[in-house]
């Protein structure tokens, strides 16, 4: 691979990423937040959970957490498969 092509592509990608970071809304001032306001407002009423993050992780987005537990399980299975001792 030509080094200048890689360098140009890298500069382009990095430049656009940083440009995107600047072009995004100002830090600390979310524009749309109705979903999060809902979580903050109703997690106690619906789930009786004081920790809103846990309420989201295990209830509102519990399915994600199932997927994420699957990722961990898959990775452990994969590591066990890769590092298994082969019977000669």
């Amino acid at each position, binding site marked *: *691979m030509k080094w200048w*092509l*890689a360098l*140009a*592509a*890298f500069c*382009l*990608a990095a430049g*656009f990423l940083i440009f995107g970071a600047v072009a995004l809304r100002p830090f600390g001032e979310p524009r749309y937040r109705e979903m999060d306001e809902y979580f903050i407002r109703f997690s106690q009423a619906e789930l009786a959970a004081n920790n809103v993050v846990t309420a989201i992780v295990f209830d509102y987005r519990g399915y994600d957490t199932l997927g994420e537990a699957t990722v961990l399980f898959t990775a452990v299975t994969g590591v066990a498969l890769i590092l298994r001792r082969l019977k000669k």
Partner: protein
Amino acid sequence: MEETIKIFTGHGYWTPLIWTLAALGVLILAILLWSRGRREYKRGTEQELPFLSGEKAENPRVGAPHLYWGFVEALRPFLSPLRDWHSGLINDYAAWFLVVLGVALLLLVV
């Protein structure tokens, strides 16, 4: 019945029925020709052995890499850069991802 077979392409339609009938006809023709082969051919005799350029070949197999040798040789100027492109170096592969990302960014954002 017809509609379960035809697919419409905008210009017309494609139906495998006619093609299959034609293929069957060609097959029958081929079998007819084949059946008119030499009567004195016997299986299991030395007639079965391949005969290449005047002598009995020991291992008459033409391996797959030798097939299309001339064609591949003719295409070599195109094929060898292509093979070099698949260099096996993981950094190159990551760099090509960056190239695709850059092209997409240029196309979409600018």
